[in-house]
């Protein structure tokens, strides 16, 4: 019965979202107060019904109801309970339901926000109405093409279990976090449209910034978590593969970062209103592209798209409707802006410049992601662009971006260049000297890009930290005013430092090792001790014991595993990793070559942890902005 109830709740949610949409339109005659009360109610009803639908699906999973197709395809009686929960969003249908649940939760958070006043009430009503329409479109999509409550008859005795790749704690929580980020961008999107269609001024910017930062936090966390998961689970020690799924999350992140910064300018200086609105539209559109095109396989390959043309077409229509519609509204309501008299070295123009770099980076990634499809249309050849393209082109926006981040920190609103130069030259010199010392004396010269990367990373860290250091003696609110920015920039600098050093100075070996044999990787020696069998709850594993020595002193022991899951899946690699802040030592088991000899993948990766420490610090910065700065927000 649970599935039927779920279906009912889903249909109720469809109706509630439609009501939410209509209540924002002027065709229903209501005074504003009543309109607001009603639309708030329907937003919460909408959210509640989607939540109940999710609960029904969860119940079907927990009771192993394999007559529900989605459960049969993604669960198994011996699947551990936490993964039964994760299986809720482990495949297409369920992940769409999660998407809508998160959308309605963000909508509810907007509806109950205390940030709205009389003059922005119309913004609230219109944006809730727009969110209702977005939700309506996607609930319709679920019901028509991807219904998780579909039954099968005759139903199987046993389910096919969750993809073993997804049976991992980090990956289990990864989709909700990433989706929360994607979907959160719907709120700035709705606010931007609401503003364009009504007052068309800067009032929306301060509101949109709250949700933009929220989404940005989740996106940052989601991307970092995904990368971390790829590192230890996919088995070959890479942490970023430029594959379409990753690109699809990076593009909205870049644009959301630009959006957060652009909204600061719009809120404080009341300019760039149109640009901020456009960024809000693009950010959400990229989320749509990310969530769905990748989910249904369009970006990976047009072929799997074609294998279910109905789904693909529906998605494309939704994107056409929402993005196309939003851009038309943007075009129609764009005010002829007053000629701006911007000083090149003012904070306004530097932020604008960096937003342009961020968007270019997103654009270049998009080109690389879609390029195989373009080429296929042109000459029917399928080629893959791959990491060399991305690693190369990403430098072009990122080098000037990193350079100007530091400059922008020291600039002032409507400021000029002279004072700026005096303020930054010492830090610039410090970064260059420290960078050169690090790259030539400590690590050893590798490439000019590596040296430049280290210098720019240090520059970003120093300039980020400086405003806080300078205010150490002053009042609390002066001190913490700059803290979110400082943390975000320091985090970025650390990430870039980690990326540069790891990719330039890391060492990788693929080799065979027998029992008792060892292999030198950099200054470390890896020695294979034993390989034993182990049984897990739903898998069997070979576990190796590898001792690692440095200068004949044992520094660690790792236990890489190779798992075979019961459900006849290909075997999975669980890497053995010994890590500290300064380096990762990584061992993955390859194939059993017989006679106690195994192929192995060995890595030494310096400063790898910074790649994930960086985002963590960025997130702290965002959290500070949202929660700590609240009491002072009037002064900032």
């Amino acid at each position, binding site marked *: 019965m649970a599935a039927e109830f779920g279906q009912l709740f889903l249909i109720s949610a469809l109706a509630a979202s439609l009501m939410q949409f209509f209540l924002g339109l002027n065709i229903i005659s209501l005074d504003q107060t009543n309109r607001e009360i009603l639309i708030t109610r329907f937003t919460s009803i909408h959210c509640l019904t989607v939540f109940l639908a999710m609960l029904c699906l969860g119940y079907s999973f927990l009771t192993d109801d394999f007559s529900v197709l989605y459960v049969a395809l993604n669960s198994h009686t011996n699947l551990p309970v936490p993964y039964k929960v994760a299986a809720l969003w482990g495949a297409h249908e369920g992940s769409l339901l999660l998407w809508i649940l998160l959308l309605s939760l963000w909508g509810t958070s907007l509806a109950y926000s205390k940030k709205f006043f009389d003059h922005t009430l119309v913004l609230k009503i219109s944006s809730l109405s727009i969110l209702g329409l977005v939700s309506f479109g996607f609930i319709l999509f679920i019901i028509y093409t991807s219904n998780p409550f579909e039954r099968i008859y005759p139903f199987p005795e046993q389910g096919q279990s969750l993809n073993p790749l997804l049976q991992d704690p980090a990956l289990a929580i990864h989709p909700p976090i990433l989706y929360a980020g994607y979907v959160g961008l719907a709120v700035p999107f709705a606010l931007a449209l609401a503003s364009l269609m009504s007052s068309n001024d800067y009032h929306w910017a301060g509101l949109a910034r709250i949700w933009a930062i929220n989404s940005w936090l989740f996106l940052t966390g989601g991307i970092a978590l995904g990368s971390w998961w790829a590192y230890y689970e996919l088995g070959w020690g890479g942490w970023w593969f430029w594959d379409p799924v990753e690109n699809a999350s990076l593009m909205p992140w870049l644009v959301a970062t630009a959006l957060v910064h652009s909204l600061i300018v719009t809120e404080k200086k009341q300019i760039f209103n149109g640009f901020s609105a*456009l960024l809000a539209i693009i950010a959400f559109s990229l989320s749509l592209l990310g969530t769905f095109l990748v989910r249904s396989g*369009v970006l990976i*390959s*047009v072929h799997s798209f*074609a*294998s279910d043309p109905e789904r693909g077409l529906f998605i494309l229509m939704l994107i*056409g409707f929402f993005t196309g519609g939003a851009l038309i509204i*943007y*075009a129609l309501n764009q005010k002829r802006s007053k000629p701006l008299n911007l000083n090149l070295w003012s904070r306004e123009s530097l932020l604008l410049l960096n937003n342009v770099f961020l968007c270019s980076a997103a654009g270049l990634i998009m080109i690389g992601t879609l390029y195989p499809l*373009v080429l296929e249309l042109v000459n029917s050849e399928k080629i893959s662009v791959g990491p060399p393209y991305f690693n190369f082109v990403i430098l072009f926006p990122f080098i000037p971006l990193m350079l100007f981040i530091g400059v922008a920190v020291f600039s002032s609103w409507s400021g000029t260049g002279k004072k700026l130069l005096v303020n930054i030259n010492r830090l610039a010199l410090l970064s260059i000297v420290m960078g050169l010392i690090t790259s030539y004396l400590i690590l050893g010269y590798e490439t000019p890009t590596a040296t430049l990367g280290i210098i720019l990373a240090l520059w970003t860290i120093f300039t980020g930290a400086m405003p806080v250091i300078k205010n150490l003696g002053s009042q609390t609110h002066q001190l913490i005013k700059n803290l979110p920015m400082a943390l975000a920039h320091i985090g970025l600098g650390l990430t870039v430092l980690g990326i540069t050093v790891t990719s330039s100075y890391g060492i990788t070996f693929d080799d065979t090792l027998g029992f008792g044999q060892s292999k030198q990787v950099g200054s470390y020696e890896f020695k294979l001790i034993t390989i034993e069998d182990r049984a897990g709850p739903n898998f069997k594993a070979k576990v190796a014991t590898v001792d690692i020595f440095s200068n004949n002193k044992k520094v660690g022991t790792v236990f890489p595993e190779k798992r075979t899951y019961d459900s006849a899946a290909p075997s999975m690699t669980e890497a053995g990793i010994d890590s500290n802040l300064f380096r990762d030592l990584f061992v993955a088991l390859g194939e059993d070559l017989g006679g106690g000899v195994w192929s192995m993948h060995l890595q030494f990766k310096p400063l790898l942890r910074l790649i994930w420490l960086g985002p963590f610090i960025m997130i702290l910065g965002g959290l500070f902005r949202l929660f700590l700065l609240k009491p002072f927000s009037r002064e900032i």
Partner: protein
Amino acid sequence: MKRILPIIIFIGLFAFLAKSLFQPQTNIPSPLIGQSMPAFSLGELNTDTSLTDKDILGTISLINVWATWCVGCEREHDFLIELAGNQSIDIPIIGINWKDRDDLALRWLSQRGNPYIVVLSDPIGKTAIDFGVYGAPETFLIDEQGVIRYKHIGPLNRENFARNFMPIIRDLRR
């Protein structure tokens, strides 16, 4: 111009995605070409016996990944029947029924004819993942030692089979 530029770019992108959606499938160089086919052990459709990759060695064969929900498979089916009946080419076709239900697959084969010497069932698509399958239909040419010699994505027909498969088959038999 500044206001309508975004919508123009979007229309271009949209048209492009729409065209990609309806683009006929073409060949993707598979990293598996020249490699031994991945090991598998799959149950035969509607029986209790199962087959492994070792069982199909010793002869040049085609592995065809198909499903009843796949539109392209419908289009290539008649050609597969024709190919199976062609004595001069004489190549066995092994079907892998992908992410499908056995009852639907059996009905399909009884209605449209069965070109396969054996049909294996891969309901969750795990073997298909090993084969790097993007979407059905896909066809692999396997030589006597079990090495993948060619991979075709999309429906087979007389023309693309003659152009892409026949030269390799002739070379292998020489």
